[in-house]
């Protein structure tokens, strides 16, 4: 293999197509990922609470949703949202991009709901007992005692979910919806330079995911320190215009 030729090709592709990779591909990939994780978190929180409901039937439906989504390939789910749902609901005049975004949200929500549920259940049961023994109601206990502690279990896992979804958006390129992998297909197809373009997009993916995973790791470490709560409280005190502890 002629490496110098390969480097020249990569350089050429970058100068000629950088906007296709970055302005189109990375932009759309980020948009898809952010939408999927944000809405996935909102919807996933709801599912998490349904899964912890005291009514068996509600728990059952939440479980079915989670198991179906987590037990089938995301590519299959994308097919369903891309081919079947638009047929079933012809009145919903969504673009392909939107259908794919919805599919990713639905997928992400299932995973996020499990992240949230396990984050909540990982909070020591004694915390709930102590709060209830003081006379706090179930809801008060959840809001003031359990959730603030669960957040530190949940946030790092959500960061990992963000990285997962970011990579999984590449499957959406099956439908040419303009993500980074679509950019690769366009450029590689036009220039007949598969390997070179693969190296470029691979590097771009890595450049995004690697710092993110480092950030998640740093965050996890910080969360393990008991004093990290202090900063959170200090921020809250500042926001409330309150006085900061003397320390």
């Amino acid at each position, binding site marked *: 293999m002629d490496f110098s030729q390969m480097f020249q090709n990569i350089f050429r592709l970058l100068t000629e197509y950088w906007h296709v990779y970055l302005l189109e591909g990375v932009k759309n990939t980020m948009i898809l990922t952010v939408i999927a994780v944000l809405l996935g978190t909102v919807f996933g929180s709801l599912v998490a609470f349904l899964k912890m409901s005291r009514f068996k039937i509600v728990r059952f439906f939440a479980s079915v949703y989670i198991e179906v989504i987590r037990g089938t390939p995301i590519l299959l789910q994308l097919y369903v949202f891309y081919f079947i749902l638009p047929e079933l609901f012809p009145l919903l005049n969504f673009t392909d991009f939107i259908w794919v975004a919805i599919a990713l949200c639905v997928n992400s929500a299932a995973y996020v709901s499990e992240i949230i549920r396990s984050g909540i259940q990982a909070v*020591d049961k004694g*915390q709930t007992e102590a709060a209830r*023994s*003081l*006379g706090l109601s179930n809801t008060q206990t959840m809001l*003031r005692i359990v959730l603030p502690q669960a957040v530190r279990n949940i946030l790092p896992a959500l960061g990992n979910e963000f990285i997962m979804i970011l990579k999984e958006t590449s499957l959406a390129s099956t439908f040419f919806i303009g993500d980074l992998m679509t950019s690769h297909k366009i450029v590689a197809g036009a220039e007949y330079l598969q390997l070179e373009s693969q190296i470029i997009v691979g590097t771009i993916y890595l450049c995004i995911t690697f710092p993110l995973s480092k950030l998640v790791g740093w965050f996890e470490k910080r969360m393990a320190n008991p*004093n990290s*709560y*202090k900063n959170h*409280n200090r921020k809250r005190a500042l926001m409330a215009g309150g006085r900061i502890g003397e320390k």
Partner: protein
Amino acid sequence: MEMIKTVDLHKSFGDLHVLTGVNETIHKGEVVSIIGPSGGGKSTFLRCLNLLETPEKGHIFFDGVEITGKKVDIDLHRQKMGMVFQQFNVFPHLTVEENITLAPKMLKKKTAAEASEMAKDLLNRVGLLEKLNEMPGNLSGGQKQRLAIVRALAMEPDVMLFDEPTSALDPEMVGEVLDVIKGLVSTGMTSVIVTHEMRFAEEISDRVLFIADGNILEEGTPEQIFHNPTHPRLQEFLRKVL
């Protein structure tokens, strides 16, 4: 005056019949210690008193009200029953002060200023005033347990329930916690204490209950229980622990 009364209290965990019809009355101002072998039902009995465990059968009366009845707002009654746990269960995301003031403020028993004033007063009593703005993660086990005690006291309860308050502590910290409990019961606080500290139980209790095999097998003054035990199970238990 009757403070807590249980009638025919039953509790099972699966096939395990943990409480087999306990009848007991705790009077106002009384200090009652509960001793007995592990797995005998001491903690379960205590945790039933504020319904952290729901009994399958039987009745619990608190201050004349049946809290096991339907349509009872247990949260309201729990405000009057302080509880201290073996594992402290202080709130790690709140400062020492917030640990104490959270419940009184949330449940509208005190204004923020009153609650804060009381927190300082209580912390001062247990020698933790300088920890006011610390996070509980920086406290020792003994300090955490003292914090847990004053957190419960901040609700101005009518009765305090202690569930093996020193069992999770390093030996050198047991004393400081027992001293706080001693100080508290000397003020006349009605207390029910599950404990493995026999000398402590003998010293502070008005009455001692020996619970084993799911029921109270013997009860009496510390003198009777520790020096003239009659039930063979109690005699055997004391031989082992003393």
